[in-house]
């Protein structure tokens, strides 16, 4: 399960941005997701997409984010994105 993301950006001028994003709090939006679920299902059916498959795929995508690590170091900037 995706819990949090760490984002660290440092540019060449010495500016540092550090963010710790608690992605688990997005589960608080679950009631909203449930509310819009029927509309999403209708939209999927109009577009001839299986809504259950789409929901499963999106959930898999969300769960799969855990472990993503992107680190770029260059002279101009350093960027780190880490999802746990």
């Amino acid at each position, binding site marked *: 399960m995706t819990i949090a993301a760490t984002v660290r950006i440092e540019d060449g001028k010495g500016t540092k941005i550090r963010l710790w994003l608690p992605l688990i709090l997005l589960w608080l939006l679950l009631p909203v997701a449930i509310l819009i679920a029927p509309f999403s299902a209708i939209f999927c059916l109009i*577009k001839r997409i299986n809504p259950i*498959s789409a929901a499963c*795929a999106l959930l898999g995508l969300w*769960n*799969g984010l855990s472990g*993503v690590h992107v680190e770029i170091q260059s002279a101009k900037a350093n960027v780190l994105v880490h999802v746990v």
Partner: protein
Amino acid sequence: MSNDRRQILDMLANAKITADEAERLLAAIDGAPSTGAASGGTSQQPRYLRVVVDSEKDEGSPTKVNIRVPLSLVRAGVKLGALMPAPARDHVNQALREKGIAIDVNQIKPDDIEAMLDQIGELTVDVDDKKAKVRVFCE
């Protein structure tokens, strides 16, 4: 002697199975615990796709890229891609053709990609250039 082994030998003695079948069953029994113990469950399965780039394009200031993508994310992406409606696939095909890439997205089956992902653990790409080193592998 384990119960399984004794059962197999009993079946062979009672002519319920042939010698070849007994040999295969015994090999399966011998193989299952050893591979499980050696691998420690599913730990042998690769979990991440790694891309490491070490570029020395700029003098004295090398650029390093280190990307780790979980294979589960790749699998989820494949499943999501399979849900793409036909008109969207046509748009993708057209965009690919404009870029000079002759790939028909309609021909890519999710099962094929899934089979490819199962075998991706063996994949290692090493590119050694004067200006950059690129490594793509699974871990």
